[in-house]
């Protein structure tokens, strides 16, 4: 900042003095520039984590008295609804991440050459990522409608009988998985397309000349070079699994009989419907723990990943 008051002459004559005079004010100027962001991060990201830790360890007594303890966690881990939510979330993670990543990679490889057809197909596959998850849910409410709905209407041509896609506990989570795969695959495809564009064509040509067939070229060259993209997409997919339950809220309310409940839905339910802040806080701590572990493992590769895409 003080360099601003230095005359041009002096600056060109003695750059080292200017640098020295700037050093300490530079730090303060930097902190001032970071301050607006820091205020919001402190209020809505760091402080809430502290707050929720305290909240989860605060046990409310009967006459408004409160003391420290792990009762909330004891209640949480004893709650069969919570166990359901965690189990469903794991099934949901595997059920959405594996197919959407495989499909996304497949679409990207199949559509990596730009022709009029392939760009139209890419658009069709990418479009679901732009609509709200609740809008997707509104469409799929009809698609999954038993008997009269779109899916049953067309499956009837193949002699497949009516299914209660959202009402049958053994099918409902699969239906929620299907919506998520439909919605997110196009998003992941974009990253694979960007990753594929970064693979030098002469590498593939050289392998072709050396007699490697398409499958060998894919397994030995394309896939290893897509490694950073894969881990980047995987991290985003894991994040989505923990942070997106809009369709569950709109379509099933976690039911039937907890079949589609998930960790964040459980938190929402405890906070919004049961007003059990202690339980909601304890569940949030579990969730934050997962995300924190994920961050420690992935922040560097995430940074590299974003870098890589540029």
């Amino acid at each position, binding site marked *: *900042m003080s360099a*601003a*008051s230095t*005359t041009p002459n002096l*600056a060109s004559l003695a750059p080292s003095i200017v640098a020295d005079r700037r050093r300490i004010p530079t*730090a303060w*100027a930097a902190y001032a*520039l*970071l301050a*607006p*962001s820091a*205020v*919001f*991060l402190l209020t*809505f*990201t760091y*402080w*809430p*984590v502290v707050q*929720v830790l305290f*909240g989860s360890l605060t046990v409310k007594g009967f006459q408004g008295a409160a003391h420290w303890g792990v009762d909330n966690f004891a209640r949480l881990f004893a709650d069969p609804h919570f166990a359901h939510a965690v189990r469903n979330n794991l099934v949901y993670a595997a059920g959405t991440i594996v197919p959407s990543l495989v499909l996304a990679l497949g679409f990207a490889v*199949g*559509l990596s050459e730009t022709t009029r*057809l*392939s760009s139209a197909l890419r*658009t*069709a*596959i990418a*479009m*679901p*990522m*732009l*609509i*709200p998850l*609740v*809008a997707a849910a*509104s469409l*799929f409410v009809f698609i999954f409608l038993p008997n009269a*709905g779109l899916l*049953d*209407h067309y499956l009837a041509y193949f002699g497949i009988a009516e299914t209660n896609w959202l009402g049958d506990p053994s099918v409902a989570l699969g239906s929620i998985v299907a919506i998520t795969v439909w919605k997110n695959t196009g998003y992941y495809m974009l*990253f694979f*397309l960007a990753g594929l564009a970064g693979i030098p064509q002469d590498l593939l040509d050289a392998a072709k000349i050396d007699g490697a067939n398409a499958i060998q070229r894919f397994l030995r060259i394309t896939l290893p070079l897509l490694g950073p993209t894969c881990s*980047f997409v995987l991290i*985003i997919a894991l994040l989505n699994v923990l942070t997106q339950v*809009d369709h569950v*809220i*709109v379509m099933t309310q976690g039911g039937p009989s907890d079949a589609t409940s998930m960790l*964040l839905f459980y*938190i*929402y339910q405890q*906070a*919004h419907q049961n007003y059990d802040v202690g339980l*909601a806080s304890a569940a*949030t701590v579990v969730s*934050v723990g997962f995300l*924190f572990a994920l*961050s420690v493992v992935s*922040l560097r590769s995430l940074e590299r990943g*974003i870098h890589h895409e540029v």
Partner: protein
Amino acid sequence: MRSSRFWPLLLTAAAVLWAVPFLWMAVASMRPGGAGAVDIASLLPAGPFGLDNFRDAWSSGHFPLWYLNTVLLCGGLLAVQCVTVSLAGYAFARMRFPGRDALFYAFLLQLMLVPPILIVPNLSTLVALHLYDTLAGVAAPYCASAFGVFLMRQTFRTLPAAYEEAALVDGASRLQIIVHVLLPLARPGLTAFAIVSVTSHWNEFLWPLMATSSPSTQVLTVGLASFTAGAEAGSEWGVIAAGTFFVAAPLLIAFVAFQRQFVSSFTFSGIK
């Protein structure tokens, strides 16, 4: 050579399958309500067509209000974010100060600890700040954006340092340099950030649902959820399709029109 026909066919079939929900939305929303009971599930674009469903949806939901709230939310938030991320992005890109790397990683933590996870504590913060049930309250947790800071840092780093050194020597302050010299050059970065920010907040549901309670502060997604629940009870599928179209259309149209820009913004990012 059979395989050269097989793959395009398979890919086309898969993409058509992917588009089916949108095809249904288009066909069902245009089909007048009376015919609904019979063939509402048919994807064949057979007439008669009409705009009755759009009229019904528009009059039974508060779409003008929801649009207004959503535009105010996305626009106001973006304006604040542009300030916070530009300043912080510049500091991380160009200045040296104690604790820079640690602070940068502390900022990046927000990529993971996203506001939907922290609804319980953030709600009590909103209440304490008297921001509950206001659009400002919905926007508040996003006013700082780790993704935006990262993106602007990368963008500023690609700009030659010579410009700002010249301006510094000419007596400009850092703020003047950021606003008048660097931001005009960083416009591609800001545009990419704007697209990602508007898309994610236009589409967000859980946090606005929790942070608001009165009908006057509802955004499109929250409105659509209650609208769908109402129309579902009456089996008005054509009306639901029309209402969903109102919510989804602006971004879909923007995407098709500016596809290249959208795709490069999203792949730059990955994180909202």
